[in-house]
């Protein structure tokens, strides 16, 4: 216990020393920030996030490759992202056919609607609608039993523009209620349907527009106006209404009965999720698959700390133990250890890791398994330098007269190492630990960018995906929201640990202490 008390005094001493310096304060502050955010991340981001991250369907409704929504405060025109769940459908019986955007509505008609305001000169990317809650019960009527398979449903999505034009956004497709209940895919914006309507609309006004042009620019034309003089599409600001309409058709049922049943909630669509994919999203924007970068970066906080700390702690433990043994015992043990260090410190870390990563990818290892293998190799190849320094420190401590004095009183080697050698190495080891943390994080990120993917959303992964996006030719260099945050976070984390390390160095090397 007395031996343990000794260790704690060292640590305490370091802490007081570090706190007294500006750099130490900044370092500790930043690290505290990273730790707090990591804890928040553990609570806030679901732990199955890597599964969601790799699930393309999950991100379908989000706008693709858009900056964060707060860019509007800097004067960038933003079409907001709107995602609403509508439970307030009204069902009516249209005895007279009603024409809307070339569609004839007749019979049992259920309508959900919501408004979308376009405040700035920007285009949303599109509109998606999900039938979220569909009751597909069997309906018992006096005339017989009606099964969900017997009810045909057609879904329409109408866009009522501020200028009065109404567009049908999807290509209607009859399906049974049973199918509608099981199909999870959304009712999609159809370029073809919209394009046809727009060509007709513009041609009627004497504006020449081809079907191809209309289809290629359908989303923008739907929320904008075509200027035949400049051949430009200008956003149409104002309030739009999006109307989601389901028509129900069933044989052998009194339509009034069906209306009542739908309104009562015993059958039919209960709620609808309407999404307008704006041109900006969330706190940190999205990538080309619509994935929320904020969530990915937040999820990565504890992972980054884990990578850094596990690699650094293992490195330091191995380095200190091996270094002390090598320096203290000397002889052939020392010789073997020194030659081993010569060998491992001459192995190029990055190429080896790229090779190992490639092999793992081939064998289908990914996720945490791959991450651990990477950390393992960072440790195996990383402890050499520290061991060399600790060895030379041990050699110099070993020649101190008080070590001889300890031997003379009969202290065992273990006791001399624990009580007289280690306490002097601990401050240095702590500084080395702190300096080691960003190294592991940056190497892991570097590997991701070099193509070794473990498919966990880490900062390195996010950065690597940005690289892919740019190099695949589809993207621009202006995806700053995608590149800067992971880069800055990595930089900030490095700065935090380097500052702390520099502050700790003054404990190790008192000559650096400033008056």
């Amino acid at each position, binding site marked *: 216990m007395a031996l343990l008390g000794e260790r704690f005094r060292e640590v305490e001493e370091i802490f007081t020393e570090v706190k007294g310096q500006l750099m130490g304060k900044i370092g500790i502050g930043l690290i505290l920030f990273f730790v707090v955010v990591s804890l928040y991340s553990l609570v806030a981001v679901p732990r199955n996030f890597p599964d969601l991250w790799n699930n393309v369907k999950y991100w379908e409704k989000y706008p693709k490759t858009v900056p964060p929504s707060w860019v509007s405060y800097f004067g960038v025109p933003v079409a907001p992202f709107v995602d609403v769940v509508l439970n307030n459908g009204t069902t009516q019986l249209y005895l007279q056919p009603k024409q809307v955007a070339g569609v004839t509505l007749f019979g049992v008609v259920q309508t959900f609607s919501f408004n979308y305001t376009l405040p700035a000169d920007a285009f949303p990317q599109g509109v998606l609608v999900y039938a979220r809650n569909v009751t597909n019960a069997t309906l018992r009527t006096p005339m017989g039993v009606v099964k969900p398979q017997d009810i045909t449903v057609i879904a329409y999505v109408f866009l009522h523009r501020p200028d009065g034009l109404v567009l049908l956004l999807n290509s209607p497709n009859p399906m049974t209620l049973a199918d509608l209940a099981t199909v999870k895919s959304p009712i999609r914006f159809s370029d073809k349907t919209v394009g046809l309507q727009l060509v007709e609309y513009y041609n009627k006004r004497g504006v020449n527009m081809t079907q191809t042009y209309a289809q290629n620019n359908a989303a923008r034309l739907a929320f904008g106006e075509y200027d035949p003089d400049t051949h430009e599409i200008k956003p149409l600001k104002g309030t739009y209404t999006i109307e989601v309409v389901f028509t129900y058709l069933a044989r052998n049922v009194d339509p009034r009965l069906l209306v009542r049943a739908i309104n009562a909630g015993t059958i039919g669509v209960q709620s609808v999720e309407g999404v307008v994919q704006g041109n900006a999203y969330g706190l940190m924007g999205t990538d080309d698959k619509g994935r929320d970068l904020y969530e990915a970066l937040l999820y990565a906080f504890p992972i980054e700390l884990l990578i850094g700390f596990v690699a650094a702690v293992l490195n330091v433990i191995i380095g200190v133990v091996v270094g002390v043994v090598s320096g203290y015992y000397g002889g052939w043990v020392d010789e073997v250890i020194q030659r081993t260090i010569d060998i491992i410190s001459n192995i190029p870390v990055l190429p080896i890791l790229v090779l190992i990563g490639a092999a793992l990818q081939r064998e289908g290892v990914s996720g945490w398994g791959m991450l651990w293998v990477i950390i393992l190799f960072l440790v195996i190849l990383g402890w050499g330098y520290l061991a060399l320094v600790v060895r030379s420190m041990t050699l110099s401590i070993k020649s101190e007269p008080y070590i*001889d004095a300890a*031997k003379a009183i009969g202290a*065992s080697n273990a*006791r001399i190492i624990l*009580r007289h050698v280690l306490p*002097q190495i601990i401050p240095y080891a702590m500084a080395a630990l702190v300096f080691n943390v960003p190294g592991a994080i940056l190497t892991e990120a570097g590997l991701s960018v070099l193509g070794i993917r473990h498919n966990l959303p880490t900062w390195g992964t996010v950065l690597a995906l940005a690289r892919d996006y740019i190099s695949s030719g589809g993207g621009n260099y202006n995806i700053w929201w995608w590149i800067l945050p992971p880069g800055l976070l990595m930089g900030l984390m490095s700065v935090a640990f380097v500052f702390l390390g520099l502050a700790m160095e003054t404990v190790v090397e008192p000559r650096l202490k400033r008056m």
Partner: protein
Amino acid sequence: MPGDSYVIKAEDLRVWFPLTKGLLASLLSRQRRFVHAVDGVSFEIREGETFCLAGESGCGKSTTGRTLVRLTPPENIMSGRVLFRPSRKLFEEVAPRLPSHAIPEEGVVDVYAVPEKLFKPLRRELQIIFQDPFGSLNPRLRVRDILEEPLIVHNIGSTPEERLERIVKVLETVKLTPPDEFLDRYPHQLSGGQRQRVAIARALILNPRFMVSDEPVSMLDVSIRAEVLEILDQLRRQFNMAQLFITHDLALARYVCDRIAIMYVGKIVEMGPTDEVISNPLHPYTRALMAAIPEPDPENRKRLRELKIKGEVTSAVDIPPGCRFRPRCVAYDENEWVRSRCETQEPPLIDMGRGHSVACWLYAKK
């Protein structure tokens, strides 16, 4: 009064350290070269006696001291042995476990024949004080931790309170009073003399029978030397300890020691009762050393000293054949009749009576 039987005895002790060579050099030549730090030294120290080893730096006196308390790695002991007579109680405690060749006679232990693992209890009675009071105390430990360590190592005192009692007592013995004031100090909060007294206390707390004092005052201010020396002398009388006192200062040796041995490049060249050796030095080297002692008479300060020695200290690696002092010896130049022996044969220690012996061919029978 010194007893009759010795406490510690060196028998033809040789301590050689191999010169480390580069990989290539050791591949090219099989021959290993050594520093002959101690090269055939024999003496014994009796109970209550203070025995001095004097000589210039590098002559092997510190190595001899360290070897007596087994701080020299056994592989460097080339020949000879160190015999130690522990207290009766300790002997009975360790003897049953020792191999028979480690006990050359009843009550005596061959220090380097004891296996490393079994040597620990013997360390209680073999202690050493080092020259550098700044280096010999771990700067990170308090006085109480430094003094408690030997007790913990040897399982003395079962409770911290018991150990503290002993620590307080030993601090009083070395006159660090009041002890409470010193217990929680770090070495850097102590003066040089106080530090050396803590070092003495650390050696003393185990009740040693034999203690090596390796130049214990040479790094202290002159003003506090007397204080430390007095403590050492008092302890010797109080505990009847045998002491090996290593010094390069003959004036100091005269004040402290009962007997003295003068060493030159790993060998004892002259040995005898201190007063006898100092008042009647026989060996040319001892004479040179005596002449080098500054005289406190201000009348003499402008007088040029006549140097009774020439050249530089012989290397301990390439020792010349014959007498190792020959290259520096003024008597060798002056006495032609002795030269042939000096050049070929190593002079043995020649008994000159009254316990005084000298290793010089000048005193050999012709």
